[in-house]
């Protein structure tokens, strides 16, 4: 099993922490994992993205150049990352903020209104969790329960209510169908 993932969006949309969460969840399932952020000026106000690898074998390169799955949370990310998805791979689009449609026909595309769903649950801050839930549901690479468990490890100082909202968002996202 090998899953290379890229997550991209505006700084503040939680793409960096979503990536860490995936890696932590992978570790909880005794997988080999790595997480690598795009770091620097772009993380201040601009777009941010990170690479995550979850694999049963040793992780060789931590920089994912041909991701199996790409999650785009905003418009500019679609243009940047759509071309990278492996043929046959999965592209998850936050359709609340992304109006354009991907051009490629050799990949699977899931439209998830992450911000809208998150807002209905309580706060748009958890739009990233909806996307992660969709990822878990569509790929089966990780279970929502493990990601929920990882939440406590990654956000050590988060309030229980907030964690609960996160789990709700994950579960709602996992209902996504293509």
């Amino acid at each position, binding site marked *: 099993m090998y899953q290379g993932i890229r997550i991209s969006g505006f700084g503040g949309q939680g793409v960096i922490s979503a990536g860490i969460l995936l890696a932590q969840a992978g570790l909880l399932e005794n997988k080999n*994992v*790595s997480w*690598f952020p795009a*770091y620097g000026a772009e993380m201040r106000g601009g777009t941010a993205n990170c690479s995550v690898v979850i694999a049963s074998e*040793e*992780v*060789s*390169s931590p*920089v994912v150049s*041909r991701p199996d799955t790409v999650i785009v949370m905003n418009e500019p990310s679609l243009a940047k990352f759509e071309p990278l998805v492996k043929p046959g791979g999965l592209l998850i689009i936050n359709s609340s903020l992304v109006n354009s449609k991907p051009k490629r026909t050799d990949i699977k595309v899931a439209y998830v209104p992450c911000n809208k769903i998150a807002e209905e649950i309580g706060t748009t801050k958890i739009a990233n969790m909806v996307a992660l839930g969709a990822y878990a549901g569509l790929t089966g690479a990780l279970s929502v329960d493990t990601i929920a468990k990882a939440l406590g490890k990654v956000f050590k100082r988060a309030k229980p209510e907030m964690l609960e909202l996160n789990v709700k968002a994950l579960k709602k996202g996992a209902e996504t169908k293509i």
Partner: protein
Amino acid sequence: MGEKILMKGNEALAEGAVLAGCRFFSGYPITPQNEVPEYMSWRLPEAGGTFIQAESEVSAINMIYGAAATGIRTMTSSSSPGISLKQEGISYCAGADLPIFFANVVRGGPGLGNIAASQGDYNQSVKGGGHGDYHTIVLAPNSVDEMGNFPKKCYELAEKYRMPSMILADGILGQMMEPVEFKFQPVDPKSLKKPEWSLGSAEGRKKRIVRSYDLREGELEKLNWIRAKKFKEIEDKEVLFEEKNINDAQLVLVAYGTSSRIAAAAMKMARDKGMKVGLFRPITLWPFPKKQLAKMAQRVKNFLVVEMSQGQFVDDVRLAINGTAEIDLYARPSGIPNGEEVFAVVDKLYQSIKPAIAAKKAEKSKPAKKAKAPKKAKPTKKLKPVKKFQPVKKKTTKIKTAKKSTKKGGRR
């Protein structure tokens, strides 16, 4: 011990140093190593140690010079431009035979360069670094786990030989998160014996001097000969390296640090296609695993060096192999290659050496028959003539300079 924790490379490096007994850190912010001082700023006081954000790298390394002279385990870290600033002080520590430990989380250069990962500081690290006739022990981790476990090794080597030791990492190793398992018992600094040269209170003993000069006629040369002998001993005893799929390999990739991870990805793709490709990774860059490579070159006749610099590391490989095998270079000076592009080079190279491999096999089974060998082939054993190693071959050069626009921007 035991538990696997998800950590950033820089944090693992800092925690590893603290667990190894470091109780003094001075540093200065520079991307991509900022997590080290940030982590130390709360972790060291918690462990009863001292953290100082110095006003500059020059100051930071001299704080280390002072603290290390008192015989405690210290650490400083920086990234390329900052390490350059520290070289004066590192040379002073080498001149004073002080065991210091520092880390360079390399970024693109020269100058301010950029903040992306690079291996451009290879020569600076393995050839001494500062002015004067000395070496630094250089360990090159290729995972967060090694980032966490190597500081202890660095302290032990530095103290055993009384000289600077360093970890040569890069922006990827510093910024990425992976599980780390600290595979040693935390070192209690109190359990470490104070060295016989350390400064402190001179009560009841003769005064001691820590200095890096000796102006007496002929004395410095004597001292440098003692160091030279020590360096020789280290080259004999302290070499570390890793091999993968070497036994049947016809082509061996040689890479260190992050490059070795990428080379491993390319190797895997090649193996999946049935190519006999192996990987050799020096872990100590100084001392360099010369003998191991030389020995391997008696059997393996093709090497491909992968490095994130213009061709610095390849020089050491060439020196080790000393003309007994062919060495190709795939270089990305301040660029980060991916497994696919390295595999493309491997594939091309492997196809080109295939006839030679086949011929060699044929020759082995029928030693009498002379194969369609190129002109200079010796009538006996080796079919493929041993050429003098050449600089970068055209075919690889082309690939290396293709595409890749490094994005402008980043923290400095």
